[in-house]
């Protein structure tokens, strides 16, 4: 396992470098000039020139890249052109919030999606299967922002059970933190639960038809052992794949939900940075997201190896 992880980490390095080059170049090609945005209404050429020098925008592009990536390696992702704060600080502030939200949403999605998928596959064609599929389809079709607003109206405004918005860091007051996050996590989680349910169902359908499930039944094993020990274990691989992909999606894709529940997460940072041509912040965010994605993939591969003994021997 250790050798496997080392190998995967080594492969990750060129991947991240490639992504960084790609992002850096692509961004330079975008129309719009951050200096013009900063220079204000008058657009004094002297000011513009001064800013260009200050942010070393007059250097050749490859030099700009090396400056940036060199800094990134030492933990310096540059300074936000807009807020003048270090990018790393901005990210370090917002990322934990979004990660907490993503993890909570994923837990909710797994807790709802996997058991329903298993049940629905096991009772294929039954009323349970029908209901699960209809609910899942509605879950996929209902937009998150609408569900979010409805939940706020019902749970916060009408019933007054949970706060409608706000954020408390987990380290400050764990219980209150979970209370503020549970509704947005639920909104995100139910949508993902539908996806997970569909994938679990189809994976389980395939596995339940397999010869080894028949063998397990031929041994006289109870259905719960057959389904949970013999079938689900083999169906977990696609479920793990989907889960990691969903997690990556959550990191960047929770913008709308974060806005509705006024959670100071990653999503808002991304949107603001893109609209303001805040190069340093966009680059930093993309780099962080890429690293997170790669980490999730390595994690998924490690889980595959635990689940599927055949993968342990492949080099």
């Amino acid at each position, binding site marked *: 396992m250790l050798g496997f992880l080392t190998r995967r980490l080594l492969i990750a390095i060129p991947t991240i470098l490639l992504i960084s080059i790609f992002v850096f170049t692509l961004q330079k090609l975008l129309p719009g000039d951050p200096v013009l945005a900063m220079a204000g209404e008058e657009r004094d050429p002297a000011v513009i020139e001064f800013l260009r020098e200050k942010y070393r925008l007059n250097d050749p592009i490859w030099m700009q890249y090396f400056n940036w990536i060199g800094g990134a390696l030492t933990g310096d992702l540059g300074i936000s052109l807009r807020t003048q704060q270090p990018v790393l600080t901005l990210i370090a502030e917002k990322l934990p919030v979004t990660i907490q939200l993503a993890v909570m949403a994923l837990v909710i999605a797994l807790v709802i999606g996997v058991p329903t998928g298993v049940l629905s596959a096991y009772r294929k064609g039954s009323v349970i299967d029908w209901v699960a599929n209809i609910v899942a389809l509605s879950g996929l079709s209902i937009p998150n922002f609408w569900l979010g607003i409805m939940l706020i109206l019902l749970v916060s405004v009408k019933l007054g059970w949970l706060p409608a918005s706000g954020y408390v860091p987990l380290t400050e007051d764990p219980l209150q933190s979970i209370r503020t996050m549970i509704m947005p996590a639920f909104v995100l989680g139910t949508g993902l639960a539908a996806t997970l349910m569909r994938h679990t169902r189809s994976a389980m359908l395939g596995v339940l038809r397999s010869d080894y499930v028949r063998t397990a*039944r031929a041994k006289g094993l109870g259905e719960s*052992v057959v389904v949970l020990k013999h079938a689900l274990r083999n169906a977990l691989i696609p479920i793990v794949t989907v889960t990691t992909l969903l997690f990556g999606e959550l990191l960047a894709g929770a913008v709308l939900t974060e806005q509705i529940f006024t959670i100071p997460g990653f999503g808002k940072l991304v949107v603001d940075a893109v609209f303001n041509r805040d190069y340093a912040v966009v680059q930093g965010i993309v780099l962080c997201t890429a690293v997170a994605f790669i980490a999730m993939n390595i994690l998924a591969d490690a889980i595959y190896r635990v689940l599927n003994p055949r993968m342990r021997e492949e080099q």
Partner: protein
Amino acid sequence: MTEGAMTEAGPLLEISDLSIRFGGAPSNLVDGLSLRLSAGETLCIVGESGCGKSLTALALMGLLPMPPARRMSGRAVFEGRDLFELSLDQLKDIRGDRMAMIFQEPMTSLNPAIKVGEQIAESVRRHRGVSRAEARAHALEMLCRVRIPAPEKRLDEYPHQMSGGMRQRAMIAMALANDPALLIADEPTTALDVTVQAQVLDLMRALQQESGAALIMITHDLGVVAEMADTVAVMYAGRIVETGPVARIFEDPQHPYTIGLMSSMPDLGPRGGRLVTIPGVVPPADAMPEGCRFASRCPFAAPACAEAPPLRDLAEGHSVACWLAPLEAVEPGAAEEVA
């Protein structure tokens, strides 16, 4: 219920008039099948693919796939109880304990994610209620009995680390772990290399003698039949067309289909001309004839064949479902002309 008592008193398994039909199918896939099996006896069910032999085995184990509409009729009395009348829980107590099954594909029949030792041990725990350590010890003993090399090491291996022959041995170990009175083997050697086939057959025979289990062996390979069987049942399109002691069936086959099967078997030694084939194909399920299902391919077909022939006793234990049997009376030497 002791095994000794069963050996003396009546058959171990008696299937009467078993019919299986899948929802919407116009004809029975298994049609009026009756069989008897005594304790310790080996019965080979022979027939080509799709003749209903595997279906029969799965029906006995209660493992038939469950499409929305499945219709099954008949009785299968095993150790005094009708398997088709049992509740699922009662059936589960018998499966893997008194009655076990070996499947055709050792590659896919073992769970790829669970260690082989555990796959054997879980069956022992399920039926004997012993501790994990005891079950593991028993699994090891079973692996020794099926003569797997380095059994201690194999306990903790996964199926993909073993060869096909070894996996089938592990399957056999699993099936015999609880000393079943009846072992059903569905083409256990078909997926294996020829040399491994012989080893596995030898092993099965040796273990069967050791344990005294009765064996239903499903095969399309007459070589396997000659090697293993006490009794043979020949199936065609869902019906038993001929059944009898193995020596009689090989020496004096009476049903035209059995005769065709025998003469389509290659002999060892120098090749003498083309192999004999049976003309035509098995009628599809939606065009199954009312009468004898073999009539369309039968060189002896007569008007009488429009009605389904019952299985009639010709001699001690030898029965044939053909209006023309015994054949000698119709046309001496006909067997040679079947081609």
